[in-house]
């Protein structure tokens, strides 16, 4: 019941934002800022993530009249974030060697994790994050979108402007590289 009310509220906010209501859009930004920022961190690292998230949300505001509601707002924002991160990747390349700040991830909240498994999962996730950091930007983007967010190969290819085959090859290589890096860590 509550979820349906939130959904209805969101539809109302979207309708208002499409008509140029900045306050309604502000509420949507408040609701989605963490998901947009999290995706940005995974794609470009924490140094550039805030810039990518800000640019993506501004692009979303400019484009709100085009939003037809065919996909969920969260999905639409994710696509814009990916495109923004990808077009800003030259700046991201300068930060390629940066180490992701562990403190950034220490604040990560996972509502689906039981306390018993938390310790084990923290270790596994730290290893995965470290391995993802060491991938090339292209491999990282494909791996994050496909394996972390569950996008289809077609969606990944379309959003990154690469062919279906390239997406599959990059994913295969990225998974292999991550596996090798995880084995090195252990």
């Amino acid at each position, binding site marked *: 019941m509550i979820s349906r009310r939130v959904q209805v509220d969101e539809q109302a906010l979207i309708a208002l934002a499409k008509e140029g209501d900045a306050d309604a859009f502000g509420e949507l930004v408040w609701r989605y800022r963490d998901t947009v920022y999290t995706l940005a961190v995974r794609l470009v690292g924490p140094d550039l993530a805030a810039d990518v998230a800000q640019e993506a949300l501004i692009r979303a505001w*400019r*484009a709100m009249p085009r939003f037809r509601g065919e996909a969920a707002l969260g999905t639409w924002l994710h696509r814009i974030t990916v495109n923004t991160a990808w077009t800003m990747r030259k700046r991201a390349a300068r930060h390629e060697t940066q180490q992701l700040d562990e403190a950034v991830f220490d*604040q990560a909240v996972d509502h689906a*994790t039981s306390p018993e498994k938390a310790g084990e999962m923290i270790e596994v996730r730290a290893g995965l994050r470290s391995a993802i950091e060491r991938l090339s930007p292209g491999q990282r983007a494909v791996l994050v979108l496909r394996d*972390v967010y569950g996008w289809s190969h077609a969606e990944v290819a379309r959003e990154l*402007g690469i062919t279906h085959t390239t997406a599959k090859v990059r994913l295969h290589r990225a998974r292999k590289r991550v596996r090798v890096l995880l084995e090195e860590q252990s």
Partner: protein
Amino acid sequence: MSRFICRMANTVPGGSRLTSWFDGHRERCLRCQADAARLRGVSRDLGGLEGEMLSAPGGLHTQVMATLPPQDASNPRRPLLMRVIARWATGIGVAVATLAAVVGRRARRRV
């Protein structure tokens, strides 16, 4: 030889017509199956990261709201091909302008 085939099979993703022979090998070879299982494990572990949510910087909301431009219904996902074309067009434009300036200066000198 078998190890070499395994290596070849592991360098290409499956599922395409070109690699169908390797797909057949992967179905029969225990070493390749073990390798594929490890990759599936990596993929499964990565899927676990989806539930992990980071907190956006405190100032993000304020910064976004302070810099909202007018709505113009522009395409939020700029087509990458258009960006490449725009870059090339800019480069060609600059080159043509430079050439025109050089030719113009030489013509003036002759006059």
